């Protein structure tokens, strides 16, 4: 699904965010990019959905080289990827329904279908009762769940999550990971960037550990500790 070949990203003359990154993520995998703040995790994710271009190297996403991709093809690439941003990127003056509605408007989905999808996804993330509230009136965990729901609006082949448990307490972090695992169980490739090694260990998924822009360790999947989704695959309810 994703392949990095000798990818380097430098800002300015000498600020090296990523250095000679090489890895391969298979379709349907759940992978962590772990490391401390400033390790280059966000940059790596941004390279995948072509929000950034590498200084050198090639990146394949779903068989397409995103580095050589013409600008006009970028929207199509992004429509196949769901992104959960670290800062959520929710519109503060719009309701939850309007925040999610923005996606179906961009995709040109008929409003009746789009509204049904919004309702199903909000049910999935447990926020059906807050559909008309603005993000101001939601807790950090609830905003995170809205961001997850929005990332799923386009039925993505690939879901990228940047610090999805960043500001959450342990219980909520587990809840978000449960949700992401369920999404992955449905067939969506999931890549999660996190600084929380506790979550990484608990989940037992394949992990690339980044430090100052380099992959310093690759932790293979641990089937004995691998966290499995609960037997209630609520994601299926959200499939239109």
């Amino acid at each position: 699904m994703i392949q990095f070949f000798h990818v380097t990203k430098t800002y300015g003359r000498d600020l090296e965010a990523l250095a000679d990154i090489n890895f391969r993520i298979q379709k349907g995998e759940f992978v962590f990019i772990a490391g401390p703040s400033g390790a280059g995790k966000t940059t790596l994710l941004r390279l995948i959905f072509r929000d950034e271009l590498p200084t050198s190297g090639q990146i394949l996403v779903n068989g397409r080289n995103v580095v050589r991709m013409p600008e006009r093809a970028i929207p199509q690439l992004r429509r196949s990827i769901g992104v959960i941003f670290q800062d959520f990127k929710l519109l503060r003056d719009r309701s939850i329904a309007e925040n999610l509605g923005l996606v179906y408007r961009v995709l040109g989905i008929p409003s009746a279908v789009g509204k049904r999808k919004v309702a199903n996804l909000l049910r999935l993330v447990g926020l059906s009762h807050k559909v008309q509230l603005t993000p101001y009136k939601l807790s950090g965990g609830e905003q995170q769940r809205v961001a997850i729901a929005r990332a799923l609006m386009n039925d993505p082949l690939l879901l990228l999550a940047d610090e999805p448990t960043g500001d959450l307490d342990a219980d909520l972090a587990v809840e978000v990971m449960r949700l992401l695992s369920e999404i992955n169980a449905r067939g969506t490739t999931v890549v999660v960037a996190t600084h929380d090694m506790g979550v990484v260990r608990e989940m037992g998924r394949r992990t690339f550990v980044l430090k100052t822009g380099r992959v310093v360790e690759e932790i293979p999947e641990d089937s004995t500790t691998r966290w499995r989704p609960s037997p209630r695959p609520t994601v299926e309810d959200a499939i239109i």
Partner: protein
Amino acid sequence: MDRLRYILEDALVNLRRSRWRALAAIGTIAVSFLIVGIFLIITRNLGALLSEWKEQFQITVFLEDGIPTEQLALLKKRIQSESAVKAMTYTSKEEALQNFRRELKGKESLLEGLGENPLPASFQIRVHESSQTPEDLGKLSAFLSRLEGVEDVMYGQEWVDRLAAAVRILRLLGLSVGLALSLASVLIVSNTIRLAVYARADEIEIMRLVGATKMHIRAPFLLEGMIQGGLGAGLALLLLYGAYRATMWQLQQAPGPMLGMEVGSFLDTHWIAAMLLAGAVVGAFGSLISVGRFLRA
């Protein structure tokens, strides 16, 4: 179809959200187009007046008294043979006096002291429009003056020339002012849309990140600019029409025709359509400048 509906909805929602800014832009565009419209109406009516005057333009050839009939016939033939002459009429001394009496209606007593008829016989010559240039008229006048039996030649071309020059200057001025104001309108719309773009910067970023094309992002702003421009031009046309009706009413209250014109005319349908279209184009252009800059950044 859904995409188009979303774009239209977004444009209208944007306008509603920034209604005061939009109203300011519409008002400014309206003032610009109002000034352009005033120039258009004035030059158009002066142009019509000029054409009318040109149509009615004639050279009067005053004849010496006591010309024999044969010489008069010969003179008439010589004048008619000139290519610049479109038509001519003859006014005898008696007819000239009768005309004068008619013009002095109510004051005929002024003529009582006159002994014999002092007014000369004359030819009124209509000249082809193509020959109504100062050079051609000068040549024709010189030719007529040299003819035997001609006492004097008179024509009011100087006035027509002055009016034509005034209309030319007004048109040029209108065009320059129009261009300057259109440019100002483009900048005003551009600034209004830029503020709207900045106000929606987060939304645009999210749209971009979830796969919106540049056109999809631009379209609502483009439409917003076109609506502002079109409404501004429409408002200007309404104000112009109101001012036109008020002026016409005033003119109709005044005794007698004004400058030979019974009533002035408003803009034609195609000029109205052109102004509305120009408003929309100005708005779209201003909008494209702002969004283009933002998307490149």
